[in-house]
């Protein structure tokens, strides 16, 4: 059935996500890191953490670069070697990958991986411009394309090829808001109705306001250890048993098809193969629902359903808690929020809670296998990790 542990999560932390007025990225990361420290009293962070990898998308938000040492300093673990990883909205999933490389190379036994973004203090127009930097400037942005516009073109192609409906996209928003309402750390803890979702203003047709994820402040982190050491630090580790990452053109127009994301699909295939499991064995998944259509595409790219059946999958309730696979129990990027650099490790934080039975009102009973699917930009980066209860 499931593969052997590649690396183990011995602790995890996440700041409250939201509009965190008066707090900057480094302070939010302290919130996440100290939670991880407190969950793992056997760990001496100054002594035991041998490397730090922090995902962050852009310097523009805080006018601050050199993220690695900044965070290392603020969380009290200098002179640890510290790195920033960047893969747009997939930045901290690539930090997890770097942590795996570091531990499997034998150069470090225990590492911290995480991510952070402080966004809400800037004007929406500025944030939109910074986010757009993850898409192709030279041909797509130059011709008026926006980030929602690019995912809208994925939606239009999906609707045309498979008959996917705007109502089915709205169902993703309603589901993720429902899940987010059960998560005390989510940005927007409120239910929405189908009518609200469908009547919200158009951002880039066919995508409306409620099809889009939130501009959010937040930070998240994991402490990863060599599997042999995990039990020394915790009775309830969570193992990563499969991991994959792939790249693709950052320009959508250069691809041969627009209804799936090649990098997400390739990452998933690599992770499933390593884990030795089938998609049907996944109990709980956090997927990259930056726009509702992206979650529908993710169902298909991850093999939860066949290509073209993603719309029906949400309509039949297969992806809600109690369905075939509970997707985005945290509320997802849609309702928990999307502080871009923090999203990848925040997805893993949710899976860590689920597989250690700490997800409270949104707990998926008896969840054994979890999956995270983090996409950078429009799928230029795709990272999939598969987790098993320790």
């Amino acid at each position, binding site marked *: 059935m499931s593969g052997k542990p590649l690396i183990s999560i011995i602790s995890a932390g996440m700041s409250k996500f939201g509009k965190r007025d008066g707090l900057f990225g480094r302070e939010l990361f302290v919130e996440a890191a100290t939670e991880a420290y407190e969950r793992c009293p056997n760990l001496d962070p100054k002594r035991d953490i041998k490397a730090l990898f922090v995902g962050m998308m852009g310097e523009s938000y805080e006018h601050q670069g050199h993220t690695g040492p900044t965070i290392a300093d603020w969380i009290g673990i200098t002179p640890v070697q510290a790195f920033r990883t960047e893969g747009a909205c997939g930045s901290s999933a690539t930090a997890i990958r770097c942590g795996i490389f570091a531990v499997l190379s034998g150069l470090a036994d225990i590492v911290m991986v995480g991510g952070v973004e402080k966004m809400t203090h800037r004007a929406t*127009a500025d944030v939109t411009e910074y986010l*757009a930097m993850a898409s192709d400037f030279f041909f797509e942005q130059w*011709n008026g394309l926006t980030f*929602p516009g690019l995912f809208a*073109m994925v939606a*239009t192609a999906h609707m045309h090829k498979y008959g996917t409906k705007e109502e089915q996209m709205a169902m993703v928003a309603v589901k993720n808001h429902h899940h987010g309402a059960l998560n005390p750390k989510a940005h927007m803890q409120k239910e929405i109705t189908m009518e609200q979702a469908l009547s919200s203003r158009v951002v880039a047709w066919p995508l409306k306001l409620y099809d889009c994820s939130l501009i959010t402040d937040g930070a998240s982190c994991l402490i990863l250890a060599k599997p042999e050491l995990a039990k020394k630090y915790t009775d309830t580790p969570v193992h990563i048993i499969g991991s994959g990452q792939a790249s693709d053109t950052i320009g959508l127009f*250069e691809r041969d098809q627009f209804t799936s994301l090649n990098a997400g699909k390739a990452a998933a295939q690599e992770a499933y193969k390593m884990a030795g499991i089938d998609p049907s064995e996944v109990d709980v998944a956090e997927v990259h629902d930056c726009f509702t259509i992206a979650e529908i595409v993710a169902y298909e790219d991850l093999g939860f359903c066949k290509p073209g059946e993603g719309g029906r999958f949400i309509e039949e309730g297969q992806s809600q808690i109690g369905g075939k696979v509970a997707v985005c129990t945290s509320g997802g990027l849609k309702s928990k929020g999307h502080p871009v650099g923090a999203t990848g490790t925040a997805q893993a934080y949710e899976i860590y809670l689920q597989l250690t039975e700490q997800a409270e009102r949104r707990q998926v009973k008896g969840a054994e296998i979890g999956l995270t699917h983090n996409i950078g930009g429009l799928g230029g980066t795709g990272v999939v990790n598969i987790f098993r209860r320790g």
Partner: protein
Amino acid sequence: MTEETVAFTIENFYKFVKEGKIMGAQCNKCGHVTVPPRPVCPKCLSKHLTWKENPKQGKLLTYTIIHVCPEQFQPLAPYAVGVVELENGAHLPGMIKGIPHEKIKIGMRLTIDFEEAKSEGWPQWPRCYFKP
């Protein structure tokens, strides 16, 4: 521009756009045409390339109508943008003009046209767009 001596760069792609041409880099080894051009063929990694003019007709593969946009495009909003497959198979993104939005359909035939772009500082590239 005399094509023989022109490097396969983005700047030169836009210089050709200014002349009303959509130029790509055809690989002498595998025949693949890369539009816009790159200095190396992404399919076979050959650097032996020849400039190739692309047809100006194609069909619409996908599109969106953008309502929320950066300040510079505000006067045009809501505007349509799509990806067109040219008759030789190359893809190009661009705005779709000269047709009511509700009449735009995937698969429809579109033709490339050109316009000067007014902008300050870098970059100073022209644009191409699509029309019925």
